[in-house]
């Protein structure tokens, strides 16, 4: 881990993690620098990075909503209850 942190040159898998963190604004300063350096010479990761950003935009556009965990729990309970009743 310490060896990884010291170098500004990272492998594709570390670059990919940085890239994904960056999609959530959770990449640190050095992670961003490492990613930029890596992208400068790695075509594969550049392609992936643009796909990853596109996915972020699509997810934003889709404006997905989740129902609350509380509701889900309620549904689970009533389904289980009814289901049991019908099979007893």
């Amino acid at each position, binding site marked *: 881990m310490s060896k990884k942190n010291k170098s500004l040159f990272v492998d594709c898998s570390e670059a*990919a*993690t940085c890239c*994904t*963190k960056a*999609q*959530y604004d*959770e990449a640190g300063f050095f992670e961003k620098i490492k990613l930029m350096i890596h992208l400068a010479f790695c075509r594969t990761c550049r392609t*992936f990075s643009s*796909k*990853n950003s*596109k*996915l972020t935009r*699509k*997810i934003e*556009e*889709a*404006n*997905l*909503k*989740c*129902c609350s965990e509380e*509701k*889900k729990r*309620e*549904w*689970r309970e*009533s*389904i*289980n209850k*009814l*289901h049991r009743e*019908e099979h007893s």
Partner: protein
Amino acid sequence: MPSNQLDPNKWVDRYSDYLFNYTIVRVNDREVANDLISETFLAGLKSAKNFKGEASERTWLISILKRKIIDHYRRNNSKKGQAEVKINYTGEDSEGEWLEEQVADQFDRTAEDEMENNELGLAILDCLDSINEKQAAIFKRKTIDGVDTEAICNEFDITPSNLWVIIHRARTALAACMEKNWF
């Protein structure tokens, strides 16, 4: 032997997000959407014996939900739409027709791109269905619910680096799945 079978105990985990996103854009109200989904699950259980296994479980639930949404408009219309009926239609037997127009109207009023985005959202959920269940669950918590990294790590008992690897895998699978239709 039917190719598709019902497994009601998995309905909530498998379909509630999909049903919710399908409904919310059509009724524009979380409470109403939740109620319609409750009714759908219960109606599904009650008519489970009629399930022939020809459609997928989700398609079947959606067909029940569609009827619930129409019923919802019907109920609303009978409360506040009477005056409009009288203005637009004189014959009583045209009620069915009018209702369909009302529903279509509602769809028009929701901006068209909103429907398109809804389709996009359903496609995303569809793709998430096809990837590893745990990856999909963690991805949803992070991306859709917007939960903190730390909280998700606690919830699933994983380290932050595990989390990022999982999210990364989920995103790669998702992008590959979406590529066919949306990229």
